[in-house]
């Protein structure tokens, strides 16, 4: 199987060909032209709650849960009535039969006994649904694929309740606006986003010698102090890269510099209200009372800035570091070109990054003009995200009504089944970007099952032979075409097209 330049532009650089997308006269030009057309705002963004609404919901939910627990305990105590108090304190929930067996007892009021509900899960589904639909519909698939790349580079994992409703917002608010900007700006936007500050515990971190830290140690509260989580992952994962020469002392110094970076409403509990009152909840705030005073030394350089500016200066240096250029060049080359990227390409991308001070379009242009990126042999095994989006795009308008009518939760749930739940890689390192992590027997079986379910809903009028030609073009191998054509029904033929080697790789 060999890919034409059109197929490479559409599938390797983009998110998958739609019927009739090709052929493209000048594929390189087609990719660069997307920069001007890219829309930073996600499709249907107006459907989403703001981060302030999400955080306020969390605060309300927590309060409601406290009230619920108290009401439940009270009802339970009342139901237990004359029984010895020792029985009540076992905490066992009242059994439905208990009251019926004691008819003399007054029935406890069922008032506050409705379990509180939070909107965060619905928001997560809504956000992930917007991400999927945007990816399927976009006319700037190369830039969108870059958004997905950076979102996974700056991975958060929505495992904690506080993060569930914020995960997607980080991609929409911190990644999307900067995907065609400077790396440093994206870096700062990400590290100041509440999702990241909460995910890597920065919102809890307190400088030991800060106002709050000093007070806590005076009061004998040992659970207040420095948290190095974000500082370490910024250096290891977001910028310099692991084993690039920094030490534990550098990490600790950076963690001290970062103290004070927190989130209003949901960050450090002890934050005095007046400090954050002017800001809505869910905002990034620099809280001087949490900040470790003094100058810091990192990788041999002194930082004597005050307040927020200190960590900002460090981040700026990290963003300009050759180690970061190398780290990012390697990941980009791996994402677009090969699991084991050619060093020549990595060097060229790193150079483009360094020479432009991390201007991302310059780096993308270097990728587009790299001959290594245009090898006709498919080099990447699509991960579940890229395969699914390519599949939905391949089906194109032939099933646009079905796709539009599909509930978000079904679309989002499919990624859980395929082993790549959206914004939930389970680790700050994000999802793996090599075939070995995705090309496994069970994972492949799940893809076949999903393809078959989707094909079962394709319109009866669909001819998979024609569709395969329109989507895969000259990349369609005679063997795949023959297997599709000999299927026992058009839908089976469609299933086969969707799991063909041409669709699984790019």
């Amino acid at each position, binding site marked *: 199987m060999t890919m034409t330049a059109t197929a490479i532009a559409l599938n390797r650089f983009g998110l998958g060909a739609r019927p009739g997308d090709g052929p493209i006269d000048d594929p390189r030009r087609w990719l660069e032209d997307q920069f001007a057309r890219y829309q930073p705002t996600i499709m249907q963004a107006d459907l989403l709650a703001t981060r302030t609404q999400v955080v306020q919901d969390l605060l309300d939910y927590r309060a409601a849960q406290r009230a619920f627990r108290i009401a439940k305990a009270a009802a339970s105590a009342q139901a237990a009535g004359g029984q010895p108090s020792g029985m009540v304190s076992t905490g066992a929930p009242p059994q439905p039969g208990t009251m019926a067996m004691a008819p003399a007892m007054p029935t406890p009021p069922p008032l506050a006994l409705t379990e509180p509900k939070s909107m965060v899960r619905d928001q997560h589904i809504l956000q992930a649904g917007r991400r999927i639909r945007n990816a399927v519909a976009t006319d700037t698939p190369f830039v969108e694929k870059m958004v997905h790349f950076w979102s996974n580079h700056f991975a958060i994992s929505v495992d904690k309740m506080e993060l569930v409703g914020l995960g997607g917002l980080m991609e929409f608010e911190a990644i999307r606006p900067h995907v065609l900007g400077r790396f440093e700006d994206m870096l700062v936007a990400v590290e100041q986003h509440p999702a990241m500050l909460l995910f890597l515990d920065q919102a809890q971190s307190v400088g030991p010698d800060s106002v709050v830290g000093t007070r806590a140690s005076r009061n004998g509260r040992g659970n207040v102090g420095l948290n190095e989580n974000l500082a370490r992952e910024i250096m290891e994962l977001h910028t310099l890269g692991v084993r690039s020469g920094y030490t534990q002392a550098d990490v600790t110094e950076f963690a001290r510099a970062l103290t004070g970076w927190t989130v209003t409403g949901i960050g450090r509990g002890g934050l005095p209200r007046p400090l954050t009152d002017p800001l809505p909840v869910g905002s990034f705030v620099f809280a001087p009372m949490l900040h470790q005073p003094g100058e810091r030394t990192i990788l041999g350089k002194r930082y004597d800035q005050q307040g927020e500016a200190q960590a900002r200066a460090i981040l700026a240096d990290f963003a300009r570091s050759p180690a970061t250029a190398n780290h990012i060049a390697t990941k980009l080359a791996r994402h677009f070109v090969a699991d084991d990227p050619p060093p020549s390409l990595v060097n060229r991308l790193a150079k483009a990054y360094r020479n432009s001070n991390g201007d991302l379009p310059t780096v993308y242009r270097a990728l587009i003009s790299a001959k290594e990126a245009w090898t006709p042999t498919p080099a990447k095994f699509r991960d579940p995200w890229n395969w699914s989006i390519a599949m939905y795009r391949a089906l194109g308008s032939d099933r646009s009504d079905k796709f539009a009518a599909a509930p978000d939760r079904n679309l989002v749930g499919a990624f859980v089944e395929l082993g790549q739940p959206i914004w939930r890689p389970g680790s700050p390192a994000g999802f793996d970007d090599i075939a070995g992590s995705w090309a496994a027997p069970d994972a*492949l079986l799940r893809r076949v*099952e999903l393809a078959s379910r989707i094909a079962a809903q394709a319109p009866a009028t669909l001819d998979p032979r024609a569709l395969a030609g329109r989507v895969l073009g000259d990349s369609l191998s005679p063997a795949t075409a023959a297997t599709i054509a000999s299927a026992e029904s058009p839908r089976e033929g469609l299933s086969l097209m969707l799991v063909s080697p041409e669709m699984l790789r790019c």
Partner: protein
Amino acid sequence: MIDRRSLLARSAAALALGALNPTLLHAATAATNKRFVFIIQRGAADGLHIVPPMGDPAYGSLRAGFLDSLHGAHQLDATFSLHPSLTRLAGFYDSKQMIAVQAVASTYRDRSHFDGQNILETGGTQAYAEKQGWMNRLLPLLPDGRALALAADIPMALRGAAPVSSYAPSGLPQAQDDLMLRVNRLYGDDPQLSALWTQVMQTKGLVGDLAKSRGQSPADLGRVAARMMAGPDGARVLMMETGGWDTHTGQTGRLATQLDHLDTLMGAMVDGLGPAWHDTLVLVATEFGRTAAINGTNGTDHGTGSAAMLVGGDLQGGRVMADWPGVAQGALYEARDLRPTLAMEALISGALAQHFGLDPALVARRLYPAQQNLRVATI
């Protein structure tokens, strides 16, 4: 997975209200109790194995390798028998409620499944030329043509101007085993994918577990079909799709399973219909038949003439309908396939005219406008 659940929820709610679906409740002029069901066998079912001509001297040598699988076949007449998996259908035959049809084919004479199914369903003479299906064109002829497809999407045969509703029970039984085998072929030349798929096939015990692990049993599907046709508001025209008939390899085992499913589905539907069965006619048909001879992989390849079945509570059945051309080498079509001697379109027009009490010529004209001189078969 996409919207089957929502469809299910919608239909379940409609059922609870005693109606099928708002779109089914159109133009209820005069109620009819007559019901018609089309079960399509996608993939070219081997009529020579389903209604085997055991009495044809040429058959035994032609199909020597398959004869063991026909042990216990139910004898229909001097020439034909019924595959042993079809026990309920054999019972219907004995009670005069079934007609086995042999050597039947649509106008299609090539051997592509998609094109063949398209012509079988549209009633056209050219693949993908006609945009409506003959079942849809039947609806205006009926006093109360409420139609339903038991499928996620309306199959070609039911598509057209007349309103049709569709209902997908959670997970129709799909021919997953067939898909698994074809994926195996798809990955044949790809070292990485074929290695992975070999492991899948090994861990899954080759095939078969998938269809059972999800979705409904054939009996469930039969019961759902019966329920959908029940009562004064139920569907009067219904279509179901079955797959797994494209038996290029290991035919005897796969066909036995598929026929068992078909038999179970039919039995459950008839049981579910109760007294309404006497107003019901079922057509089982496939796009084309398979080669007369066994191929090199214990299967058969795409052919021409095949078998069909009419089953109905009020049918004057218990007979085989065939102008039997025989399977001796000289009798075969293009020296390889069963020669068709009956037009599928003639069979369908005749059966529907008789069942609904309509003028056969009118039915043929409306259902098959592309075929001017169709001679309707007398059922």
